[in-house]
């Protein structure tokens, strides 16, 4: 095969794994220490950070070309537009 494949070292993968475990502990801690529905935003922010780590390193997106990065951007934008536009309706009824 002619393509060059980026090899991610075990050490880097384990570092990301440790980061994900830390963020999991953080999200549980945050949920237990902040009562009320407001912490859903904190939970989502932490989940987005974890998702970003998984996509970037475990799924090799950091090392992919422009095509896949743009497609990911388009897919996530479509999802955001769906949710955003739905809330224009749901919130202002």
């Amino acid at each position, binding site marked *: *095969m002619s*393509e060059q*494949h980026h*090899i*991610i*070292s*075990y050490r880097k*993968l*384990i570092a*990301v*794994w440790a980061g*994900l*475990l830390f963020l*999991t502990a953080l*999200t*549980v801690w945050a*949920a*237990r220490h902040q*009562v009320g*529905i407001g*912490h*859903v935003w904190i*939970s*989502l922010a*932490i*989940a987005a950070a*974890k*998702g970003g780590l*998984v*996509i970037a*390193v*475990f*799924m*090799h997106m950091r090392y992919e070309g422009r*095509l*896949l990065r743009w*497609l*990911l951007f388009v*897919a*996530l934008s*479509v*999802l955001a537009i*769906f*949710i955003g536009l*739905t*809330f224009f309706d*749901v*919130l202002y009824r």
Partner: protein
Amino acid sequence: MSVTLHRDYAGAKLGMWLFLFTELLLFGGLFLLYAAYLARYPQEFGAAGREMQLAFGTVNTVILITSSLLAAMAVTAIQRNRQQAAFRLLVGTILCALVFLGNKYLEWSIEIGRGIYPGSERLVAGPPGESVFYSLYYLTAGLHGLHVLIGGFFLALVAVRVRMGTIHAGDFVLLENGALYWHLVDLIWIFIFPLYYLIL
């Protein structure tokens, strides 16, 4: 007669990613429903979320993150031409999948025992927001569980082929795509966990 195998690494991976985007939108629809109903029944969602078994959710999160690490390491191992290590890492990933599903079985048994399942007498008699919460929970976690099962089978197939030597450092796109699917399963759970288990 010799047969020339056509291989298209970039195309195979692009196809996998396109499929994963449809999966994201599938689960995205369920998260959209969750968000719309959370806006309508914040108190009931809070009350229902408090009944969820946080210990099972947290343990399963750790198990899935670890299984994702093993799958990613398997890709690195095969790229470095270490078949045996790749095989063992895949077996580890599949074992994590089995433990995850075993936990799910125990968790759901306890919940069903408490009368929490779609259409149960307790939920029908209770406030509508709570039964919506649990219906969405069973639907989303059930669909996710089905993905864990499919992903586990797919990775088992890949592991057999790694063992046979038909997946190797020169041709590992099937392993890479299997790992991608597995990471998606992990990714979805990363969002299910706080939304359903941490709405305290």
